């Protein structure tokens, strides 16, 4: 990647990754293999991880997996999925709107490939949030709760595992590629529900190969546990046991056959090209491989959307990668017959000011912004929600982050009213008090 701006975005996403990699608590616990697709709670009643007795899900799930594409920094809505060609240059800048495969749905000219597949996508144009700062907005979007000093809330990946367990025994239940958010981790839930953070899709899981052969390695492990026996018998503490669990998980992961799911090098060169030779594109490809291997929640971050200056140059650059990545992902999943069971969600922390500022940029705009949901039983070719003529106000189909997450949870068949208590005994639900928008489902 020589393009200097993209280097910059990659750097941003790397930074985000670093931020959260530090919190990475990979959940790889011993859970009996789950039944495939029919992830319905009824069939999972016997599962040891579904505690307390699961409440009935609101309905049959339409989606089994979720690929969550996070546009970090606050994606401009006007220049992407909610263009306002009639509003003139003060709003649109130099960006034109183009027709798509969906009748009457226009998107920005920066997405020519996606336009051809708009029949698979349900645009969400009525998003609105109360959080105008990055960290807070990002947190709210991921967790449905606003940031508090006293507790950290879990993200959808943790909720999914907490309520339904894991499908693949050895791979993590949730993976974040190139990013991650404080509100998208395990929060107050046990650390085993947290995602595994992967910095670069090309590198796979770092340090997963031992320096010595299997027998030697086993001897070393045995030796360590002998030396540690005195310490263990003295300190009967959760944080000590957590370490021991993590070592077991780490060893199990090292030895997993499925570790090759992380190796995108096994893909055909042509497929890799299709997704785009950039961090985001390859991240989408890795997401598909992981979903295929029963990792049910994968997040891919594309950073660099904080375009206070030179908005149009930046957006055009990022949109090129985004357009390529999403289009390849939609095509590939469809080709493999996985689009029906996999929900692709694209969102961001907030939109950007519809009026172009003096630096040819756009500033934070929490009042109205866009995202989309595709696949996973959602009816494509539609735009849900509407903003006014200058995109400054949602006039139809308003969705807050809790509403948006409730809609995702609804698709995944997670019970919206099931209360999970934090260790401090406070009650929480998967999307707080959000109301799902059920009419977008087919």
């Amino acid at each position: 990647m020589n393009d200097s701006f993209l280097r910059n975005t990659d750097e941003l996403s790397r930074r985000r990754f670093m931020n959260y990699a530090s919190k990475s608590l990979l959940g790889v616990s011993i859970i009996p293999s789950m039944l495939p697709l029919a992830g319905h709670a009824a069939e999972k009643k016997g599962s040891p991880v579904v505690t307390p007795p699961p409440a009935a899900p609101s309905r049959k799930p339409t989606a089994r997996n979720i690929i969550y594409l996070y546009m970090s920094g606050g994606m401009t809505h006007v220049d992407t999925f909610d263009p306002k060609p009639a509003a003139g240059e003060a709003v649109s800048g130099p960006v034109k709107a183009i027709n798509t495969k969906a009748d009457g749905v226009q998107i920005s000219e920066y997405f020519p490939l996606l336009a051809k597949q708009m029949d698979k996508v349900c645009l969400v144009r009525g998003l609105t949030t109360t959080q105008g700062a990055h960290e807070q907005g990002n947190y709210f979007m991921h967790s449905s709760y606003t940031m508090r000093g006293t507790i950290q809330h879990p993200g959808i990946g943790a909720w999914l595992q907490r309520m339904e367990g894991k499908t693949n025994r050895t791979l993590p239940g949730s993976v974040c590629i190139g990013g991650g958010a404080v509100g998208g981790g395990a929060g107050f839930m046990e650390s085993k529900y947290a995602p595994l953070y992967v910095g670069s899709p090309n590198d796979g899981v770092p340090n997963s190969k031992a320096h010595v052969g299997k027998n030697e390695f086993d001897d070393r492990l045995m030796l360590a546990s002998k030396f540690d026996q005195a310490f263990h018998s003295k300190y009967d503490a959760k944080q000590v046991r957590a370490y021991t669990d993590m070592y077991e998980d780490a060893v199990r992961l090292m030895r997993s056959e499925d570790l090759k799911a992380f190796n995108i090098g096994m893909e055909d060169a042509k497929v890799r090209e299709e997704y785009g030779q950039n961090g985001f594109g390859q991240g989408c490809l890795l997401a598909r491989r992981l979903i295929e291997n029963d990792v049910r929640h994968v997040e891919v971050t594309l950073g660099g959307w904080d375009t206070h200056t030179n908005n149009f140059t930046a957006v055009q650059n990022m949109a090129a990668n985004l357009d390529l990545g999403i289009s390849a992902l939609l095509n590939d999943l469809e080709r493999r017959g996985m689009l029906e069971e996999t929900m692709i969600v694209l969102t961001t922390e907030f939109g950007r000011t519809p009026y172009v500022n003096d630096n040819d940029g756009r500033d934070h705009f929490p009042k109205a912004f866009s995202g989309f949901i595709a696949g996973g039983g959602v009816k494509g070719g539609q735009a849900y929600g509407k903003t006014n003529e200058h995109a400054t106000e949602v006039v139809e189909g308003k969705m807050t982050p809790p509403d948006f997450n409730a809609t995702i949870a609804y698709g995944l068949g997670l019970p919206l009213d099931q209360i999970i208590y934090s260790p401090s005994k406070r009650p929480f639900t998967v999307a707080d008090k959000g109301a799902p928008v059920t009419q977008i489902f087919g």
Partner: protein
Amino acid sequence: MSLRLLFPVTIVAIVASATSAVRADQISERIDSLIEEGYKAHKVTPNAPSTDETFVRRAYLDIIGRIPSMEEARTFLDSTDAGKRAKLIDQLIDSEGYVSHWYNWFADILRVQSNMGNNNEGGQAYAAWIKDALRNNKPYDQFVRELVTAEGYVWDNGAVGYYLRDAGMPLDNMSNTTQIFLGTRLACAQCHNHPFDKWTQKDYYEMAAYTFNVSTQTVASKGLEKDMKDVQQDLDKMAKSRSQSKTRVAASMKRIVDGILEPLKNGVGEQEGKGLTLPMDYKYDDAKAGEAVEMHTIFGKQVSSKKEARTEYAKWMTAVDNERFTLVMANRLWKRVMGRGLVEPLDDWKEDTVASNPQLMKFLAGQFSNSRYDIKKMLRAMYNTKTYQRQSTTSDVPEDKPYYFPGPVLRRMTAEQVWDSICTLVIPNPDMRLRGAAYKGALESLKKEAEMIEKANSTDIINVAKKYAEEDYQLDLKAQVARDNLTKARVATDAKAIQAAQKALNEANDGRDGIADKARAELLAMTGGKSKGAFVSAIRTPGMMTDDKDKKPEPVMDTQTASQWNGYGDEFYRASELPSPAPGGHFLREFGQSNREIIENAVQEATVSQALDLMNGPLFEKISNEKTQMMTRFYGASNDEGRTNAIFFSLYGRKATDLEKAIVAETVQAKGKDGWKHVIWALLNTREFVFVQ
């Protein structure tokens, strides 16, 4: 003499009688007796006293942030001096290792980032300023006052980092200030009345008004500032004109002028007449949206003075009668020493907050202000208590229940402690391997550039910008064409065309990237200067402006001193000397070092990546390399007992038990030379290694 006589029963009286200086050991005794009263009241049995083996490792880790070397552990353990614990505490508190360890703590609280805005030097000057304050035990109230009143360029006053860190976010800066120094969370009230506390949005704005005029944009001379304002206005007008090319050229010019002035953005000043107004969506009855906000403190005495508002506000915040200021820090120090605050969480105090041991909390705060905010004295007192020197608690210490301190809390090492301990295993004198000098040259040349730009004629600046704006505009056009071609090529899936368009786009963007630097270099050449890097000589140490003879300077790194680390690899610097935060994927980050984005964001939880790193990461080979500190001791030993001890003293700060010796012997017998490697690997991968008992 009985304690009762020394310390009058009512604690308030102690606070009031700030007359005679109380010795640290007297404070220790009083802490212990208040803690013991807590045991009685809550029927708590204290833990047994710690052994010397436990103590020496803990003291090194807690006070200077790393494990003791083999010699350090042995020296302490072999000593028969009855007062050796107190002596070790004194020695550690006054060492350079203390600066490193406690800097990490402040860096986490203050979110110090090496890369602040435009350059690394600014962030490093801020870090150097904090280290200097720790080295010289700057009274805490003075430390805080200097931060919140800081002004000038970062090369003259590193404390301006406090505002540069939040450049462009004055409101967030105030939330951080109240959270860090006053343990009060106002962040919610930034947008609306606080849902769980009494703060209103108006309260918040009235507080923020004290520092709202702080400017981090440029600290240019008045003349240049005015000229630049005119230029900006002209450009703005031009940018709003109808012609697209004009708009583009104006945008280019603005970008370049901005880039030229970049060196001036390393300072803090006050913008005259800049007042704060309520937001346009203000929705409460107590004021009107858009109304000007009057300065008003959130609690305690009011500060009315309009002149020197920031100074007055700093005085208010750090005044002895602003109790919360003292309480918050006393509690922070206690938590850092014992592993749990008397008040938790430590930065969300409310009016009804009660400490788990209220008398002790009051006492600590009283002594802290009495000692004129002497951090080292408070730490010395805490480390010398029986309470601290007990065994750590062996069972869970639940977060939602009060803790009465039967002993300190068992803790996993912080990321920095693990890393610094590994450095201790590898290099000699890890505390003295400093990097301070490296950035000073760059900072000095930045300073020269800034001085020259300040003196530059604004016509010259404009002319240079104009010249390069044309080039920038042309490149922008090229980029535009390349992007359009790229899109077309992608739609057509034409690989060759994609490649060509991508190449053209890269060239154009790379060209644009460097253009402001080129423009600045030309301007500097015009004004008789040379380009960056020509001023490395004549270095004045930042943060050393005073001629205070008693001041402890940063240890000097001459080539002779530096030669002891030859051949050890450039990565083995203590965490405090590495960029803050360490880059992604670094060992420090995997072990939970804060990203330094959010106040105290470090985590000590177990992760699979940590286990993978310790088991399979590249560090193990480096630690077991024959040149390392541990391994030279190992190879220096004449028999297996000596070799075993070299490993155990180096990693655990103690000798091996009989059982451990037997396990080692068994392993070495079975595996020969490789057996030793197994032993080292195994010990590194134990809980005993990463936990602080």
